[in-house]
């Protein structure tokens, strides 16, 4: 049985090309009709890949044709120019393990891909497109991904500004359910950050904006309550997290006006997320006791540090994958030899597995 992977990803194709081939589950049936004994289509926003097992070789062109959306017919010469990659046998196994572990993702170490792979597997299994060969391969891929996540720091830290802010809030306050949040300015980024905080348990959320109407609208969208803009300073004494994104030309908060606000909250930290440009908060505020100020550059810097930390883990993750690839191929090879012995067929040549066979 030939095991192969044909696909295109963010590494090789732009989004327009990818969406042309992002066909639904129906493609698996077409692929089986084209000669694949087993087929699984993994279609995400960053990749469209076909994992298949077949007795005879199914060409990349044929697979590309099966993937085309809405019965679109490809021009053969055009199809050959498409940035499809093809991995066979060992390379295919290695590629799937890397994909499932998030090593091939646009954001290294992201975990969404594992869920998407599991979903694709489940869907193909339900439709009967997955047989013993792909079943085994994918089960092992899920195991590898789990091991990589557990034994390396590849998924550690947040890599987007919004999630960095929320993670930092959790590192300061622990449970966010009892935290009071004030959103100053009703911009898109504040809304995203506020939503992320609500999704992690924040229930007391206040929104203040120069335009009361916009404050009220945002408050309704994120499940908070609006506060008059002239009362924001008073609110600052009560809140634990302050998100600012006003269009003020001068800093709204500086040590002089923040000092009195902190007087009665010596054991309660204040986390300020300043996503305004120009900044709403004087950077010197970060030096005040119990105040943690993160502006947009600081948040980006933390995101980059997390990404760099994840990249440093790639070698360890690759080592785990290499071990599993070797073990997987060895086990399959042993079984093939055993099956050949029992059925009276000549054993597979020597002890090694032919690259095209599994």
């Amino acid at each position, binding site marked *: 049985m030939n095991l192969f992977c044909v696909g295109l990803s963010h590494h090789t194709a732009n989004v327009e090309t990818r969406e042309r081939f992002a066909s639904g589950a129906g493609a698996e049936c077409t692929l089986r009709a084209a000669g694949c004994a087993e087929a699984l289509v993994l279609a995400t926003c960053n990749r469209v890949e076909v994992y298949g097992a077949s007795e005879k070789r199914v060409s990349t062109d044929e697979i590309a044709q099966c993937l085309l959306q809405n019965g679109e017919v490809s021009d053969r010469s055009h199809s050959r120019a498409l940035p499809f990659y093809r991995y066979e046998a060992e390379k295919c196994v290695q590629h799937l393990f890397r994909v499932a572990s998030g090593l091939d993702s646009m954001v290294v170490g992201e975990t969404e891909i594992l869920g998407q792979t599991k979903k694709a597997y489940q869907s193909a299994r339900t439709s009967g497109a997955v047989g013993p060969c792909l079943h085994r391969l994918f089960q092992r891929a899920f195991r590898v991904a789990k091991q990589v996540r557990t034994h390396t*720091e590849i998924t550690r830290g947040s890599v987007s500004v919004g999630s960095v802010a929320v993670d*930092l809030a959790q*590192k300061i306050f622990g449970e966010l359910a009892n935290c009071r949040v004030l959103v100053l300015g009703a911009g898109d980024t504040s809304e995203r950050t506020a939503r992320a905080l609500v999704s992690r348990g924040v229930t007391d959320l206040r929104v203040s904006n120069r335009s009361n109407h916009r404050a009220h609208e945002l408050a309704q969208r994120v499940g908070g309550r609006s506060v008059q803009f002239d009362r924001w300073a008073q609110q600052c004494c009560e809140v634990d997290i302050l998100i600012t994104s006003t269009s003020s030309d001068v800093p709204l908060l500086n040590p002089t006006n923040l000092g009195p606000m902190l007087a009665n909250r010596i*054991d309660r*930290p204040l986390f300020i997320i300043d996503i305004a440009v120009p900044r709403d908060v004087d950077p010197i505020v970060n*030096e005040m006791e*119990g105040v*943690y100020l993160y502006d947009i550059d600081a948040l980006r810097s933390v995101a980059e540090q997390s990404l760099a930390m994840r990249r440093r883990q790639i070698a360890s993750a690759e080592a785990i994958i290499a071990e599993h690839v070797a073990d997987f191929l060895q086990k399959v090879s042993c079984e093939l030899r055993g099956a050949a012995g029992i059925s009276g067929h000549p054993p597979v040549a020597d002890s090694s597995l032919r690259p095209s066979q599994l």
Partner: protein
Amino acid sequence: MDRYLLIISTICFLAAVVRTGIALRAGVFRQGRFNFLAIGLGFVFQTAFLSIRGQALGRCPLTNLFEVFVFLAWSVALIYMLVGPAYRLSLMGAFTAPLVVLLQGFALIAPIDARHPVKVPANSSLEFHASVSLIAYGAFALACIAGVMYLVQERQLKTHHLRSIFYHLPPLTDLFAAITRLLWLGFILYTVGIASGFFTGRPLPRVQVVAAIAVWLLYATILLGRYFRRIAPKRVAALCIVGFSVALTLLWGITFSAQTHSAP
């Protein structure tokens, strides 16, 4: 024979230190059971050492500076085993193990295991006073360790440079709550220890009384500052480190003076 048990115990704690060091150097510090197991094993050997030494002496093994240091290390490990589950086990262990290694390493290397020429008679009140006071020191030591963890995290949050260990530390507010609880635990035990010292039926050397009350006042001040919200959490964490350093130095002084006092 009993010293071998202590050496094995120190090696167990050292294994936890080395493993953490390697992991931190590689930037891949991970929670795991190794530290907790290593510390648990180290604790078992510590307990065996103290038990054998106690049986040989016919009393609680707190007759010289060597035994005091080992008992203190045992108290630190005991409090860690008791309160550790409330925090991140292996991480607190990562900070606890080096302190135990330092205490036991010093006890093993320094020539402070001076045996008494005559057998010291058992005095249950005195033993209670000494052992409770040392367990209180164990709580203060853990508060000091939690203080170090707080300051490490606080520093990383302030400078915006988050390292691998940052992601394994408990939240700042949880750590501060832990510091407060450990300070109260240590303070209550220490108060009981000091109070029981007045009922030992022996005259108390003035130096020891003054030193013990100085440590008590120091921790009382920290707790009062915390209670009336006059000291910021960061300062409380720093004071825990200062407080334990002072307490440890005075403990040495107290034990040293007690040894010279009891010497014929």
